């Protein structure tokens, strides 16, 4: 009976081991697999996925940027830029302004009696005193507003000098004009930044600007005004 009892006891221990320890062992394995394998793996995958998504977005921007840049025709881009910087120069356009004034005054047979430059933010203020017939002053104004660098006539004060026929009548006109410029941007955008877009309106403006007149700097030499010479010395471009 005694050996039989011993055998039964060991069988019982084995059963107890199976019942109590095996699930614990499997549970430990599950715990280890979850916390030592799955969770770090999942975190690593999540992190890599986020970085990948960001990288894909950046690459999409870079790709479209590279494609866009490749599609630009260098000559066309240079022509457009030339036109845009003629319209809105990077530096204050003192010389071009004088060139426009001089050429237009000559063209419309207007005498320039005085010219004064006023520095004002992103434009050059000019006070100009002219004498001429009304149609010539009118044409002068029209031409100024349809030439580059872009200008706006802020105010006009017209005074009659004689009292003959309207077309012949001489007027003295004090004009306050603003010629605009815009300094070059300090940075040209980040490498990973999208390229700016030229809107339809801006494309239209570019076409419109093509019809605007630009006076070459050679006209500056023809200026007979002392003020212009002073301005050139004061504000060399």
């Amino acid at each position, binding site marked *: 009976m005694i050996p039989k009892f011993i055998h*039964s006891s060991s069988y019982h221990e084995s059963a107890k081991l199976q019942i109590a320890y095996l*699930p614990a062992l499997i549970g430990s394995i599950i715990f280890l697999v979850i916390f030592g394998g799955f969770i770090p793996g999942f975190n*690593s995958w999540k992190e890599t996925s986020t970085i990948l998504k960001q990288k894909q977005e950046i690459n999409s921007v870079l790709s479209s940027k*590279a494609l866009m840049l490749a599609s630009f025709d260098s000559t066309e881009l240079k022509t457009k*830029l030339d036109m*845009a910087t003629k319209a809105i120069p990077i530096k204050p356009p003192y010389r071009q302004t004088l060139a426009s004034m001089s050429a237009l005054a000559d063209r419309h047979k207007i005498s320039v009696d005085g010219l004064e430059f006023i520095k004002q933010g992103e434009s050059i203020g000019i006070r100009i005193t002219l004498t001429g017939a009304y149609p010539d002053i009118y044409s002068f104004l029209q031409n100024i507003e349809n030439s580059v660098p872009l200008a706006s006539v802020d105010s006009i*004060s*017209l005074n009659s000098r004689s009292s003959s026929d309207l077309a012949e009548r001489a007027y003295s006109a004090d004009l306050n004009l603003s010629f*605009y410029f815009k300094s070059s941007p300090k940075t040209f955008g980040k490498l990973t930044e999208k390229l*700016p877009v030229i809107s339809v309106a801006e494309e239209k403006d570019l076409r419109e600007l093509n019809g605007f007149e630009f006076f070459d700097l050679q006209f500056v030499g023809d200026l007979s005004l002392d003020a212009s010479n002073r301005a050139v010395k004061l504000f060399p471009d």
Partner: protein
Amino acid sequence: MKNIINLLPESAMEGSRRLAIFKGVQTILIVVALVCMILTIGIWSLSLITGRELAIENIKSKDLEEQIVAQSKKEQQFYLLTHQLDKANKLLDSRIQIEKKLNAVMTAFPPDVNLLSAEIDAPGKNISVKFAADNFQKMIKVVAAAKTKPFSLVKVNDFSRNIKGEYLIDLTVELL
């Protein structure tokens, strides 16, 4: 013998039931462990694949950056173009063409009166005009014109006669 009986389940049926429960629990645990292992292997594989994709994207990014850097001159020109165009657009949209106002003054009033002066500000609506005429009827025509489109008479600042006997009128009109 009594001891042995104590160690054994209460009945064969109960023993069999316990064994079935145990086996069930054991099977579930094994299945869970296997699923966890498969999922772990899966997630690590996925992580590896994602890592590989990231490496490819990094190479692609470097290549694209090199392409862009090679065209940096074009890029700068384009930035500058949009920068200047933006200003040109705003200016072209907002500027008031003063010569149109001036032309209105010169054409809307009777031609036989003498326009002595005109003060026009681009942003303002009011225009200050001074006229001279040799007779009163012409002055009436001036006032009538100041009250007719495209003008609206704001006020008569002055009305007088000079030593030559000419009538002088100083008006403020509003361009409608």
